[in-house]
């Protein structure tokens, strides 16, 4: 118990030091972007929420406008890593001074860069600033391969490290004694839950051990990231298509690679149906296995988390948008009540989405490794044949 408290204190201290060492007040004096600096109209709220839903190149905690009209940002810059026409280029995101519409041009490695809507653009040739056409697309700049440590990547790294510490700690405790202590007591029932309620019944007694590791990892990864998204740090990692697509592709690879003979036969040449229907079924099954299953996994997680964030932020924004019609106290009170309860629902959704992703992954893997069921045996021509045991049942 004492050890666990000490480690917890250690982690908090590291986190505090990390935040306070890098978090710094930065001023921007961009009159176009920050006139007044207040988010109180519906359009500004929409823009703000969309900006939050996207990934960003700097980790900003909060910002406000000082009495002198300066915009102050609190947060810390993150490294920007680009693969450009001149090779690898790195610099800190603070060089953009929180500008997001391409007005600040950074010159590095003989090239000029601008950030437009959270995407880094490389300016062509001798252009000194970004030119836009009527639809606000840059005409003299092009996107570069962006390998930056963005806010979402920071989220993934932090959660990954925490999971590494927590679960290796939990595993180490079983060597010394049989009962885990400290935070392990929180994790152990969840691990057992995933194993006994998700993995074992869906994959089957024979194969479940091989896949439980993946299912546990994906469950806790999604759950912790969903919960991190509800903290004021403002991560939206599981609301990024790239992250959920990657997780869905992991599941796709696992159930494709571990599929056994029966799985492929049932997919490509379904036994027990007329031969003319078999190619049609094969097309449907192939589309289902390679497109629909991973697509539904990735869209469900991404859409649920994004929608949750949009709802929470819209309800918080009520205190600005309804300020005039309800008064300050009324608008703030309404916003407080609504956003409090919707946040409670979001805590449930955070668990539910992790559970559903893991559950469906287990179900798909279970379909791929299912042993041939002897109640529905069929011969090589695909005709149903009855098992010896079935026939015996008729005589007894």
């Amino acid at each position, binding site marked *: 118990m004492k050890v666990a408290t000490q480690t917890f204190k250690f982690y908090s201290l590291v986190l505090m030091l990390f935040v306070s060492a890098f978090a710094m007040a930065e001023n921007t004096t961009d009159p176009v972007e920050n006139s007044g600096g207040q988010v109180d109209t519906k359009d500004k709220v929409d823009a703000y929420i969309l900006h939050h839903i996207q990934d960003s190149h700097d980790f900003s905690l909060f910002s406000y406008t000082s009495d002198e009209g300066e915009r102050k940002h609190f947060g810390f810059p993150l490294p920007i890593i680009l693969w450009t026409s001149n090779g690898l280029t790195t610099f800190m995101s603070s060089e953009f001074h929180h500008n997001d519409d391409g007005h600040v041009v950074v010159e590095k490695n003989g090239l000029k860069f601008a950030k437009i809507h959270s995407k880094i653009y490389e300016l062509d040739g001798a252009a000194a600033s970004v030119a836009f056409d009527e639809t606000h697309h840059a005409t003299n700049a092009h996107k570069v391969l962006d390998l930056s440590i963005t806010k979402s990547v920071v989220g993934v790294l932090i959660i990954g490290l925490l999971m590494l510490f927590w679960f290796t700690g939990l595993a180490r405790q079983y060597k010394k004694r049989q009962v885990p202590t400290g935070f392990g007591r929180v994790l152990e029932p969840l691990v057992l839950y995933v194993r006994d309620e998700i993995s074992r019944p869906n994959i089957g007694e024979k194969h479940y051990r091989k896949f439980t590791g993946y299912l546990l990892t994906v469950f806790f990864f999604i759950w912790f990231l969903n919960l991190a998204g509800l903290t004021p740090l403002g991560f939206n990692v599981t609301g990024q298509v790239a992250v959920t697509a990657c997780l869905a592709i992991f599941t796709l690879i696992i159930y494709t690679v571990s599929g056994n003979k029966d799985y492929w036969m049932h997919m490509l040449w379904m036994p027990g149906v007329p031969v003319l229907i078999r190619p049609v079924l094969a097309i449907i099954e192939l589309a289902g296995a390679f497109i629909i299953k991973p697509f*539904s996994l990735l*869209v*469900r997680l991404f*859409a649920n988390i994004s929608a949750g964030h949009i709802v929470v932020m819209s309800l918080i924004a009520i205190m600005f948008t309804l300020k005039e019609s309800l008064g300050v106290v009324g608008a703030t009170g309404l916003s407080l009540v609504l956003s409090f309860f919707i946040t409670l629902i979001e805590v449930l959704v955070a668990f539910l989405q992790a559970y*559903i992703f893991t*559950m*469906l992954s287990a*179900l798909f893997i279970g379909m791929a490794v299912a042993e041939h069921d002897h109640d529905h045996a069929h011969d090589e021509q695909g005709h149903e044949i009855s098992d010896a045991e079935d026939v015996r049942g008729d005589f007894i």
Partner: protein
Amino acid sequence: MYNLIGAGLIVIGAGIGLGQIGGKAMEGIARQPEATGKIQTAMIIIAALLEGLAFGALFLGK
């Protein structure tokens, strides 16, 4: 315009489906309370599949 109507129709359909799933699951649990766990699991899986469809429609129709 038409994609919005289509998305709306799909969401209405998904709503009806979710209502059916929830209602039938309730009935099933009321009839056989000892099967609550199994019914809930199956219910959540089907609800999740349906929800994925509805969200897909929303994103395609947006």
